[in-house]
């Protein structure tokens, strides 16, 4: 989905959650707390949907292995 004026308006910051695939164990803690459903879980990895992620960082504190950081878009 291409970002439109209305979806990009919801983004409060210029940050984006980034998952380090080498550290991630796919426990889904991040997806469980994501308030905008921006994290999709497949069998072997999790995916942050950039068009949904608001960069709020709520996923960072729940990750048991510190695999998530906020990066500049």
């Amino acid at each position, binding site marked *: 989905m291409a970002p439109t004026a209305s979806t990009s308006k919801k983004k409060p910051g210029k940050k984006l959650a980034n998952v380090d695939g080498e550290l991630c164990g796919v426990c889904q*803690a991040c997806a469980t707390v994501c308030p905008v459903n921006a994290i999709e879980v497949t069998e072997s990895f999790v995916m942050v949907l950039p068009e949904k992620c608001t960069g709020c960082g709520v996923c960072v504190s*729940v990750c048991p292995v510190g695999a998530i950081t906020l990066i500049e878009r």
Partner: protein
Amino acid sequence: MPKQSQVIVVGAGPAGSSAAVGALRAGATVTIVDRKTNVGIPVQCGEAIGKTGPSVAEIEIPEIAIQAPVRGFRVYSPGMHTVDFAETDPSGFIVDRRVFDKELFARATETGADSLLGARVLDLTRSNGTVDGVVVRHDGKKKTLKADIVIGADGVNSQVARLTGLRKTYKPVDIDSCFAYEMSNCDLEVDDLMQFLLGSEVSPRGYIWIFPKQNGRANVGIGIGGTVETKTAKEYLDYFLTHHEVAKRQLSNARVIETRVGALPVNGPNKKNVVDGALLVGDAAGHVHPITGGGMGYAMVCGSIAGRVAAECVANNQVDSPALEKYETEWRKLYGTEFDQSLKLRELLLKTDDDTLDRLAKIVTGESIVKLTAGKKVKIFMKAMSTGDPKLISLMNELRKLRMV
């Protein structure tokens, strides 16, 4: 569109397989779908299960999954006072979840369930507002599977819970973040007790566990509050393993043979677990003990109830929320008080400092801990009062408000 089966169970963990068996036994046709292609992998759990749950659910614990029988527990308070509880006979087991989950799933299929693995739920279908199927992605294609009832047994990150609106996103404060190692070469001081370590330094808003497995192996893990930002769960566990005296005594030669991560709901069951045409069980329903984090036994019992009620409702041609409510009534009758009281006790314990926990550990017995975590009243009030300890007295007054002493 032809119906896939009368009941579709989403999730092939203990809750889902038990729900499937419950529904099959009551005469319904069942399909189990799971996002994963390997049921039971990766392991995301402490792997402990009591004997009671499977016995109530009338589903046998798969013998080949049993790693060690356990008779009780040893709790270490923050200041290292220990409280033991040990029954004469084993009251539960540490299992190998890979084998356990796969065996339960296999048995569900042998009882008659159809299965679809590698099928991720994208959406639910509805007819006149009643859930009547799921849309999955399978083999790279979107597929619609129709049913009379959908049972969401798809874990803490349940898509069915989200899509039915039965649960909004969890707040970090309502989940625990878990990390565990399976270790070899352990020198456990007790090989038939589960060990728990409490304290804001070792494991803030949670605990560290050491569970015995066979051949000198153990499941060593940590669950901490989702709001803890000082260190990650892994960092807390690694620090414990290298610095703590309990780890030095028992795990100094231990080697890591597997790592596990997980997330647990710890704010009790969802307010509501049924909508027209769908219901939730297991972690998806929040059927996890708010203090111990245990969930497998509840998942099996509540799963088998959910399956049976679903089959009955299908047979009666009545799958609306009031009809499915029977499931809520039945599980609440068994575990309602236990969950409700434990949730209140959890709140109180989270407010209690390490020093008070140490004082409590000195006067409390293992039996009292068992009762308290089961939501039952214990007789420790007079003993606590007679110490004259102001911190203990104020804790007892709080417990009295909860009608727990």
